[in-house]
């Protein structure tokens, strides 16, 4: 499994490299007489190195496949599901937090994150995010003066 993923990663590097390489030829040169030192030169140099190194890594992966999977301490079976869940929750938070507002969005995010992490105590689930966000409000908004979006939804209900 690890070998297959390693090969997939290498393939992704090559694909990204080729994509950048094809675009780099559309970039204009800095100076008509010095095309070689133009805007596309350095990216192309990086792509050549990426493709060369990827090929060597892929070859060594295929030729010397005895590399055992990294023994991370106590891998939990639900670990991957937790990562996927957190990723999607963060993605939703990133997309919607300007609309919902930072504080309501962060509260919902914290509440569900605690559930996902296996917190069983309902008081903690409900009130830990309140305490955390109160800390954020005092330190970051009141003391440090950072502006966070109130959110269109909050504006609609409270303005």
């Amino acid at each position, binding site marked *: 499994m690890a070998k297959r*993923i*390693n090969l997939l*990663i290498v393939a992704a*590097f090559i694909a*990204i*490299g080729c994509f*950048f390489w094809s*675009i780099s030829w559309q*970039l204009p040169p*800095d100076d008509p007489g*010095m095309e070689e*030192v133009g*805007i596309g030169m*350095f*990216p192309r140099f*990086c*792509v050549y*190195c*990426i493709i060369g*190194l*990827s090929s*060597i*890594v892929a070859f*060594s992966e295929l030729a010397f496949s005895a590399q055992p999977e*990294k023994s*991370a301490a106590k*891998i*939990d079976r639900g*670990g*991957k599901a*937790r*990562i996927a869940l*957190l*990723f999607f929750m*963060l*993605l939703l*938070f*990133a*997309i919607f*937090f*300007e609309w919902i507002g*930072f504080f309501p969005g962060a509260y919902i*995010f*914290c509440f569900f*994150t*605690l559930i996902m*992490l*296996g*917190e069983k105590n309902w008081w*903690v689930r409900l009130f*830990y995010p309140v305490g*955390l*966000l109160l800390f*954020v409000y005092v330190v*970051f908004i009141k003391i*440090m*003066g*950072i*502006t*966070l979006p109130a959110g269109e939804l909050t504006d609609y209900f409270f303005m």
Partner: protein
Amino acid sequence: MDISSIFAAFSPASLAVIALGTGGGIILGALPGLTATMGVALLVPMTFGMAPVHGLSMLMGIYVGAIYGGCISAILLKTPGTPASAATTLDGYPMAQKGLAGKALGIATVSSGAGGLASAIILIILAPYLAKVALMFGAPEYFALAIFGLTIIVTLSSNILKGLLIGFFGMLLSTIGADPISGYTRFTFGIANLAQGISFIPALIGLFAIAEVFTQLERAFKDKEETAKVKSIFPTLAEIKQCFRAIWRGSIIGTIVGIIPGTGTNIAAWLSYNETRRSSKTPEKFGTGYIEGVAATESANNAVCGGAMVPLLTLGIPGDSVTAVFLGGLIIHGLAPGPRLFVDHPDVVSGLFTGIILANLFMIVLGFVAIRFSTQILRIPRKMLLCAIVIFCALGSYAINQNPFDLLTMLAFGIIGYFCQKYDYSQSALCIAMILGPIAEENLRLALYDSDMDISIFFTRPISLAFIVISLVSLLLPLTKRLKNRILRG
């Protein structure tokens, strides 16, 4: 030295932020899995609204505190809080088993403070001279220096080929956005948010903090750790005298190792431990709970903090992942690290030097306070901590540009960082390549313009040639060694 900025570092606001940073760093470092890099990455955006000296001193406090804090869990749990304290477990934990946990933590605090202060003094003496030399560098030297910085980091990855690969990938990513010479935008794919390139701070928060959260999520949670009891924490004068040579040796080794880009706290601690054991009259006592073993490792790993600032401040080359993130802190305050920093912002340099000294002094005081509460610190529920870290990551990524796109950047780099950790690609190499990419590109092109496309310019100038030769040797040496080993094993 700018006297007014030295006095400014003693203002109540400055002292408060340094103490806050150092205290926070100690707590973060004490918790296994949460690294100094993650702490500095989380705090970089928070320093945005502060005066540069305050913000940078706070980051230094976190760095120093977290490296020290790692010894708390190393001694009490046999689990190093940060990789820097791995060697401390050798003698620290056996001491705790003998009922001497307080003594071990006490000597670790004194040694860390002594190591940190010694390296800060060496930094203050050495950095201005190195900066003067670096002022003579031209485009070929800077290009060679960027390549040198990258190769040194790459050679320390567990897999050099993968380290190089991710390094070039980082350099390719650094070409997204405005070209450093003409200003022409490249590889933006019609996304306006990429016109200025990939936002560096959200990227490094993703690489180091979000990736770490993902990795932590993969493991089973163990909320309640059994810790040793902590009694009589202050070392006696006789014990300090006994450890004096180990502390002195560790401080020198740590500072030298810190100055060499790409080495780091872990290597310094092991080197110092081995050297102290080798030169000891009672080497057989090491590993059985010997106080000198703790002093040797802790003085060395904290001495790295000051040493690692030398290449960053004088050459603009981050020596490890923490200093790479620290560089982000300099950038958001509009400061370009390198020799010009000493000419253009002597006030910031003086203030930062004072801040480093103060951070180490605070570390000693707050360290003894933290020892008193060490068992409580280690019992902070991991679930709550991870939740808070993710919120701070989101807050930090958004706060700099007030742009929700930065949250997506953070998330994307979080995933990249997670895969890097899991499949042996060096995150530090990616991060440093993204920093060094524009420096390398700009100076490569300028050097080639100046020499009419003659690449011999990199080999005919002595400093540039020296950097290229060292880079090649440091790359080829471990590769040939591995190849030789493989051939010998048949």
